[in-house]
């Protein structure tokens, strides 16, 4: 339990400390402080692996808002463990890499603060058991990744990419929240483990399909599935260590996590299977086809990430079929798909992390990521080349690298669909292996592009100011070397991973079949002459041929549907929305306070007037009213005179004095009616606002008698009279109506409960302290707003950096 809490909160605590520590640990040294956090957590989590593989899981609950069913509950099981290990493990390597990648002139402190925030949020997502807590962390990952992508915020492209990722993932997240709330209305609980136990109840409800689709929308936007993938390539504007971390190892996998986590709840339904697997396959194909045409290595990797995520997603879709079948042979067939998904998840993190770091090294050493300006680096940068070779060949699915194993399992899972005779499966699913195969060919092609176009061939003539190429410093190479070695190691010892890491995760995804043999299949490096191996041979042959003749058929990217990018829709949508918003805003934002008051009054009259007319119950009860004394009458007469006189004031001072008369008369009225607190407040507020008024005099133009058109005067007069009548009617009606019993009885005991004799203050400070606290907060924010508006207005014209 303590490990889990530490895992969630330690990164946040460290993130808060970094800005302070940064003053003492300048430059690179701050990185060495930061790296201890993920490393420590990784070791802590690793210690729990044996007990998890024995079937243990760690649930911890702390009541947070018990009345709403929101508890801060954490749950560490096999599935969370995979992700937590990836987040902390890859996180340590990324921090190590970033220490040497980032120049000391960068805002390193800010960078690590964001990175730690992101790490904590991500760990929170995978470790929380309560849907609301999960949602909070989920959106926190969106916000912290926004900060990370926009790290170089002076670049327009970075800001654009950050905004895009934020808009898309947060929108998806909000839909997901609606889905969560639907699940709550069905079951009355937010706790995942309870939800899994109630899956029959959920499946029988009419909200089942909407809730499922909404949750999937959250997962798809986060995991960059088609057509929401458009944010991922733009997110590559972030510094490369961030790209390696967020967009290959962690953030985009949150969607995968969500789908895997909700599989026990939603799986077994045809909609879930079709949506998840079709979107996944489509994403895989679209991503890989688009990756081939990229010339920027980082953009290529971005599209390849999109494609690989689609592949994992489609596998999870097939894996869900196990819930719908009853024969144990079929169950074993389909659970193998989920196994392949989780296995590939780990493999992808290793090789994609290594590849991103390689691209970062190239960028760092040569100052360019453009394939056309790269070439012949194999002999100049041998270590980088080796890592790139391992990573790419693993991604292409070649032996002896871990990608080969998971790709074979992928083909096997796709082929297993033909044996499925459930869910009224139509012949469409027979297309699945074909699509998967075509996608894999394109994957193969772009992997070859990475290796051969970058590291072989002619060295292009250096650009002006380009540094001569040489091998990267060894410190920068450590992290990719570790990841590259893992790629090879996993190929030779895959079953170690299977028993200790993947097994518990499979139990978490399939709680129904827990303990079933065959849930964790034995991975064989050589699995016999079957269809998958022939598919692999076929794709290698086709891939090599297509790669050789790439320049002859590359022209097809210029025609047809491959041209229209979804980006255009996104941009057009944004521009259109902005334009409409500005038209609407300009229509009512006239800049004249008088108009705004008129709008407010009109809305007020409309709401109150329609409400009153709707009720049709005009009961005026004057029987309980106290008689009006002569002195009260005098005060009210003074007030009426002064308010009418304001209209005819000939100078500003006179108007303000008259306004003051009105205010102080109200204060006197409060005194008469024995409300000293209100009277005091009124007097002080009146005094301070009068001072404010006087200060504002400096800004106002000369006082001129106004000549307004008759229609304008009539309009204003009507609004004024109507709002006066509305207020009066409401005030009189309140006397006559009492739907609810009076609450004043409750406060008779206030002095005993709250220990204060002044009932007004006990209400403000004790009974409704939350209101007061928030009002103070609002006041503070409003004050800062006024202050910065006044200050910014003065600076206007001097600073146009935003428009650049």
């Amino acid at each position, binding site marked *: 339990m303590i490990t889990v809490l530490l895992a969630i909160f330690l990164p946040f605590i460290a993130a808060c400390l970094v800005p302070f520590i940064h003053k003492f640990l300048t430059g690179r040294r701050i990185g060495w402080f930061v790296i201890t956090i993920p490393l420590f957590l990784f070791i802590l989590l690793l210690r729990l692996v044996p007990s998890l593989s024995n079937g243990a899981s760690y649930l911890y609950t702390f009541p947070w808002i018990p009345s709403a069913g929101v508890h801060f509950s954490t749950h560490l099981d096999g599935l969370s463990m995979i992700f937590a290990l990836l987040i902390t493990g890859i996180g340590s390597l990324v921090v190590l890499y970033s220490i040497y990648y980032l120049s000391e002139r960068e805002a390193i402190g800010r960078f690590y603060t964001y990175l730690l925030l992101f790490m904590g949020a991500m760990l929170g997502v995978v470790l929380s058991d309560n849907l609301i807590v999960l949602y909070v962390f989920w959106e926190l990952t969106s916000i912290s990744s926004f900060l990370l992508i926009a790290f170089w915020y002076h670049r327009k492209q970075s800001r654009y990419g950050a905004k895009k990722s934020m808009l898309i993932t947060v929108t998806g997240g909000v839909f997901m929240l609606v889905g969560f709330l639907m699940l709550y209305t069905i079951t009355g609980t937010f706790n995942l483990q309870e939800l899994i136990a109630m899956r029959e109840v959920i499946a029988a409800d009419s909200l089942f399909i909407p809730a499922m689709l909404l949750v999937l929308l959250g997962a798809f936007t986060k995991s960059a599935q088609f057509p929401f993938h458009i944010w991922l390539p733009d997110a590559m504007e972030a510094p490369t260590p961030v790209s390696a971390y967020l967009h290959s190892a962690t953030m985009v996998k949150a969607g995968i996590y969500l789908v895997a986590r909700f599989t026990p709840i939603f799986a077994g339904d045809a909609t879930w299977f079709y949506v998840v697997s079709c979107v996944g396959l489509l994403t895989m194909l679209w991503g890989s086809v688009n990756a081939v045409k990229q010339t920027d290595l980082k953009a290529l990797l971005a599209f390849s990430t999109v494609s690989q995520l689609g592949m994992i997603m489609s596998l999870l879709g097939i894996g869900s079929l196990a819930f719908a079948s009853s024969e144990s042979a079929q169950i074993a067939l389909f659970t193998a798909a989920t196994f392949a998904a989780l296995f590939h998840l780990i493999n992808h993190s290793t090789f994609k992390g290594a590849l991103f770091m390689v691209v970062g090294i190239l960028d760092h050493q040569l100052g360019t990521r453009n394939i056309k300006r790269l070439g012949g680096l194999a002999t100049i940068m041998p270590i980088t080349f080796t890592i790139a070779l391992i990573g790419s060949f693993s991604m292409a699915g070649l032996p002896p690298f871990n990608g080969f194993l998971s790709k074979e399992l992928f083909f096997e899972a796709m082929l297993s669909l033909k044996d499925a005779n459930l869910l009224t499966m139509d012949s469409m699913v027979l297309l699945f292996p074909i699509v998967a195969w075509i996608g894999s060919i394109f994957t193969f092609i772009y992997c070859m592009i990475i290796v051969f176009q970058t590291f072989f061939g002619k060295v292009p003539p250096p650009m002006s100011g380009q540094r001569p190429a040489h091998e990267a410093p060894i410190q920068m190479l450590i992290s990719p070397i570790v990841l590259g070695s893992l790629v090879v190691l996993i190929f030779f010892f895959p079953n170690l991973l299977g028993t200790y890491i993947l097994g518990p995760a499979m139990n978490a995804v399939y709680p129904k079949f827990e303990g079933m043999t065959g849930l964790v299949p034995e991975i064989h490096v050589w699995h016999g002459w079957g269809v998958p191996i022939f598919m692999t041979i076929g794709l290698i042959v086709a891939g090599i041929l297509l790669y050789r003749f790439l320049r002859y058929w590359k022209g097809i990217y210029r025609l047809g549907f491959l041209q229209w990018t979804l980006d255009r829709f996104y941009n057009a949508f944004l521009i259109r929305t902005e334009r409409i918003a500005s038209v609407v805003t300009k229509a009512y934002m006239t800049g004249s306070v008088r108009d705004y008051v008129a709008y407010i009054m009109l809305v007020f009259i409309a709401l109150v007037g329609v409400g009153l007319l709707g009720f049709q119950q005009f009961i005026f009860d004057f029987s309980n009213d106290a008689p009006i004394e002569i002195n009260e009458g005098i005060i009210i007469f003074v007030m009426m005179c002064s308010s009418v006189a304001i209209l005819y004031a000939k100078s500003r001072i006179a108007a303000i004095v008259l306004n003051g008369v009105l205010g102080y008369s109200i204060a006197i009225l409060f005194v008469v009616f024995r409300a000293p607190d209100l009277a005091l407040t009124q007097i002080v507020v009146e005094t301070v606002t009068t001072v404010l008024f006087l200060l504002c005099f400096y800004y106002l133009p000369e006082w001129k008698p106004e000549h307004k058109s008759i229609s304008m005067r009539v309009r204003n007069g009507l609004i004024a009279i109507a709002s006066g009548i509305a207020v009066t009617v409401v005030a009189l009606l309140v006397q006559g109506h009492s739907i609810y019993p009076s609450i004043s009885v409750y406060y008779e005991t206030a002095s005993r409960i709250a*220990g*204060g004799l002044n009932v007004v203050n006990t209400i403000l400070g004790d009974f409704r302290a939350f209101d007061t606290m928030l009002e103070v907060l609002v006041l503070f924010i409003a004050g800062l707003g006024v202050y910065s508006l006044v200050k910014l207005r003065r600076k206007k014209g001097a600073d146009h950096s935003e428009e650049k």
Partner: protein
Amino acid sequence: MKKNDVILQTVTKIVFFIILTFGVELFLAGHNSPGGGFIGGLVLSSAFVLLYLVYDIETVHRGTPFDFKRVAALGVLLAVGTGMLSIVFGEPFLTQTTWLVDLPVFGETELGTMTIFEAGVALTVLGVVVTIILGISEDVE
């Protein structure tokens, strides 16, 4: 513009402290009789407003070398902080407690977390009001 306001300045020197004392008195009286954080804060800020009106901003800045934005921030922090404190003791957010303490000079006095909360309110009001008025009046020059 140059004005001869010796009388006002001399009066202010004394009145300023009277207003401040009155503000504190109002603030402390809050729990049992009229007063409280909001009113106390407003009265305190009116003292400062008077000071700024009578003397120029530079002079007052030399006398009161603190940033009123920070005063407001401190106020918010106090108000939220006392609320959070109750969580540490396992009570719901914003639970207030009072103790009766026998103090040497004041005799039996009621001490409560309520006062800290109200102090937060008062400081926020003071900070915000002075910040706004200063913001506008500084802009004039």
